[in-house]
């Protein structure tokens, strides 16, 4: 996309608002739907990857230290990772905290 969505005028759109750039959905920030975000106590983490398997958004990846962590650009804050974590690594906190 040449411009960010918020700057596109009606004249910038392709006919029928057809999207000509494959994979452009990756630019869509679903993270701003979030009201809670996950926080981590990695000392308890056994790197079992259960959070990654359960994440409905597919946004949990291993960080530089190989701990599993959500990409907040996409994380919608559903809390499923916190619920499923066997060793209670993840705590959901309100976004304003």
């Amino acid at each position, binding site marked *: 996309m040449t411009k960010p*969505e*918020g700057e*596109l*005028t*009606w*004249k*910038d*759109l*392709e*006919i*029928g*608002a*057809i*999207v*000509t750039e*494959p994979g*452009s959905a990756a630019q*869509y920030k679903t993270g701003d739907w979030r009201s809670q975000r996950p926080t981590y106590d990695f000392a308890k983490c056994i790197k079992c990857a259960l959070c990654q398997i359960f994440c409905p958004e597919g946004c949990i990846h291993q960080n530089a230290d190989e701990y599993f962590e959500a990409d907040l650009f996409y994380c919608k804050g559903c809390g499923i990772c916190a619920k499923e974590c066997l060793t209670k690594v993840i705590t959901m906190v309100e976004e304003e905290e």
Partner: protein
Amino acid sequence: MAKKVGMEVSVAIGEAVKLANADVVAAYPITPQTHIVEHLASLVADGELDAAYIPVESEHSAMSACLGSAAVGARTFTATAGQGLELMHEVLYVAASMRLPLVMTVANRALSSPLSVWGDHSDAMAVRDTGWIQLFTENGQEVVDNVFCAFRIAEDQKVLLPVMVHLDGFHLSHVIEPIVFPEQSEVDKFLPPNHYPLVLHPDKPVTMGDFAPPIIYSEAKWAQEVNLRASKEVILQTWQDFGKAFGRYYSPVESYHTEDAKVLLLTMGSFSETAMTVIDKLRGEGREVGLVRLRLWRPFPFNEIRQAVKNAETLVVVDRALSFGGPGGPVCSEVKSALYGEAKKPKVVSFVAGLGGRDITPAGFEEIINKGIEISQKGSDNEFEIFGVRE
């Protein structure tokens, strides 16, 4: 040399679609449209038309299949009527919003309930705001001519929108009329090959009908509106070019003996032909009456309507559909909107008539005109009247 033949109008539409060399027909049979797709199925089965005929399980599927077909750049045709058009409803919006050129003939039929297979314009009015270009026709020749025009308009690079060609169910679809068919070479010359610019193809993937968050939806809708309004220029040019090529000219609003007419009748569809004979009779009696026939329903020809009726004192509008709890007739409502800001305008009287296949006879039109004059002079408590309803 063009051939003149006697043929059922539905069958003639099938022949026109064959001459237009459609690639795909996806349709579901429904009265009074069935003969159109039945004939097309025969043409494909007999190898006379090299097209894919997709028999689907419903009209919703028919229109959905048409979307896919138009999206890969195939020349696409379907036909429906009444309840079938309503079952297509949500997909109609998608076809127009995705800017897919396809052509559909609608043999207009009343909506249930009570169940009626007979004609009126209820089905057309229910899909008024779907974003399709909508043309109304008055006889078999006009339907055939406008099938060719519809493909050319729909596929024009400046338009790229679906087009509905309305014909009155039974009153038009099931009658045998003399129809002039152009030669294949003449059709090929008038109707260039379809080139949809952003086709679905694995070599250059695109996403159609994608989701739009609030930040972009308004822009998408405004682009669609600007495009539909601008399509009128292409519609006018296409009708002009058709006239030059075949000698039959069409325009959004057509006037019949409107010169110096104090009283005008306004109609849409095949009943206009009955109305014309009544105007002839009344003119013969020295009365200053005329007829305005609306052909282009969407985009609505506001200026042409204003021009056509501006010198009249009384305008009697006959609708063949009812807007429940609303302003009576949908056509009349649109005409009133067109005239609202005008300093000089006729008094507008609204009649709804011809519902569910009931005829409006020449005597009926005469009565409508006389009653309209009376109401415009004396006034009426009613916003509109259903003509001929038994009290």
